[in-house]
């Protein structure tokens, strides 16, 4: 029964997609994007930015330790989007530990934030799917511990149907290999903390710096970057290919 229901939904989505394509919508790759404002990152993405009507995944390099950087990168990217699109940012999570006073530093107005508390991953993913079908929403984020291929595909179809951007923020580290890649998402990013450069005065923490790995991107080039975020201007101040001893290990892990 369940499978029939899902197939019906999928079929309806596919029809909607065909209708859109017939109505003169651009081809899959060339749809609306929003640039991240960092040349190195945008160059790796098809169309020079992240696809709007799509789902993107952001993973922490290490569980908990890199949750701050992963959430920070997610917000930085969404902040760029929120400047272009009206509507609320729906943030769906079980743990309500996102701290709204910090959002301004990522270009996200806390007044445009809607928080939804979901009891578990299934409820969070369901909520996200509902939100992605609602064009009044600017973007929807779901914090989850994991998801399966079906869920990812449903989300992607919902994002295409509603034209809404979805972002899956994983709270748990996901091994890059050892399990098959279940992603139906447009892009998958892995974020890890890097020591900041001295912020003017020696000994003070500087601007947040991350290692940003673009693990997969449809129609683009995966890459490995060193990125710095300026929360005063809400802009990336640096995005360069990652050059460090760790890069080699990272590459090995990916190709394995």
């Amino acid at each position: 029964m369940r499978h029939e229901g899902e197939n019906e939904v999928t079929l309806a989505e596919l029809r909607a997609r065909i209708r859109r394509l017939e109505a003169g919508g651009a081809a899959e790759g060339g749809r609306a994007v929003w640039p991240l404002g960092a040349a190195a990152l945008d160059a790796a993405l098809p169309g020079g930015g992240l696809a709007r009507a799509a789902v993107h995944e952001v993973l922490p390099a290490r569980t908990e330790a890199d949750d701050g950087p992963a959430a920070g990168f997610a917000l930085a990217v969404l902040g760029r989007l929120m400047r272009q699109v009206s509507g609320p940012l729906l943030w769906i999570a079980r743990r309500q530990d996102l701290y709204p006073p910090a959002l301004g530093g990522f270009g996200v107005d806390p007044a445009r934030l809607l928080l939804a508390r979901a009891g578990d991953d299934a409820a969070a993913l369901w909520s996200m799917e509902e939100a992605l079908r609602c064009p009044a929403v600017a973007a929807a984020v779901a914090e989850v511990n994991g998801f399966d291929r079906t869920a990812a595909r449903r989300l992607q179809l919902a994002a295409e149907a509603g034209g809404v951007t979805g972002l899956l923020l994983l709270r748990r580290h996901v091994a890059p290999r050892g399990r098959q890649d279940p992603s139906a998402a447009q892009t998958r990013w892995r974020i890890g903390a890097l020591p900041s450069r001295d912020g003017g005065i020696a000994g003070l923490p500087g601007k947040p710096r991350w290692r940003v790995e673009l693990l997969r991107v449809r129609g683009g080039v995966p890459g490995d970057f060193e990125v710095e975020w300026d929360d005063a201007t809400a802009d990336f101040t640096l995005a360069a290919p990652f050059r460090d001893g760790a890069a080699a290990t990272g590459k090995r892990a990916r190709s394995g």
Partner: protein
Amino acid sequence: MGSEAKGLALSAVDPRAAAAGLTPGLPLAEARGQVPGLVSLQADPAGDRAALTRLASWCGRYSPWTAPDGEHDQEGAAGAMIDASGCAHLFGGEAAMLADLVARLERLGFTARAAMAETPGAAWAVARFATTAATPWRIVPPGALRRALAPLPPAALRIGAAEAETLHRLGLRSIGELETIPTAALAARLGRGVARRLDQALGRLEDPIDPLRHRTPLEVRRGFGEPIGRREDLAAAIESLAAALCRRLEESGEGARRLMLVLHRVDGTLQEVTLGTSRATRDPAHLKRLFAERLDGLDPGFGVEIMTLAARAAESLTARQTGFMRERDRTVDLSGLPELVDRLESRLGAGMVTRPRACESYLPERAVAAAPPFVTAYPAAFAKGPPRPLRLLDRPQPIEATALLPDYPPVQYRWRRLLHRVSKADGPERIAPEWWREIAAGATARDYFRIESEEGRRSWLFRAQGRWYLHGAFA
């Protein structure tokens, strides 16, 4: 049987016991002497009241306005009041409605008597004093109140036992006789109570029913010839009710904020489902979707005979500013957003979708409160100040940390057994307790530090009374 000052006594008797000459108030020992083999049960007044309330709710199948009625009853013959104005036609007329009511109650195991009259007092009197087992229900036609009441004993006026006793002693055996006494004389002898009850029964004085639920003009109902129970049937019934309710809302220019669906089941029990909406709505498709989320929770039992859907709180539909717009953007269409919020809350639970609101508090964990998703005036933005973490632990976690000097940031700290060496730090930022509520609880000032570990982990730590805590994480 209940316990009174003089020991155990009867508090209610069934018809067979009454036929044997037993009356309420009789001491149990005496009753046992009169009727050997008497079966007695412990009285349960709270249980009786609850059952009576359930019965009154059940009567909601006939009218949205019902009330339990038991306070005047001596004999345990408690009842329920139904305001049937404008309802009888739904059941094929008054006679058909009463016949249906009595038949259903008997099937549920009650001995039922019913009457319909222009006043609650007259209906009460006729149901209790002018019906028999053969004719368990009666209708007092309009204008026939006085004639119907005249032959009934004064006790039929919902008066106390003492008052009834006095009237009996005065030789007044019927309401008809009572009516011949001037009101002033009656009041002088018996107080205002009896005269008031008489006036109420005859419709000369207001006699409001205190309803279980406040009367809502916005209720729609559907009865089913055959009880329904299949999921699809329930869904179809809800859909048609939603459409009917939305038409009514449309007529009155209102929208529903709270909805109540009631299933009247074959076995006489009810199931109620209440839903809230974030903004007033009269969109049938939206209501249908909201209830669809609850469909799995519906238990039709052996079948549902009647369904009612009521808009519990309706208010005028107004377009309100939401504040979700990008600056200088007034064009975007945010319709669909309230419906989304409703669907999410229907699944996640009421109050699970909120907006953060800035609060005036120095304490970081109190600087944010949850506001409803749609508020008329959006509260002021968060104050600009020193950097704040992206994640805030709802409760600061105690950690081991080492600082070289008091007021200095830690040089290292341990969190979940891992040792982190601090390479950069900023602070202290002193956050004082809110003296008006914290001092008594023993709270002290906190010295916050923004620190970065050697591997780049950025955290928010504070020291209070010589102890260290982790309170948040930066990007």
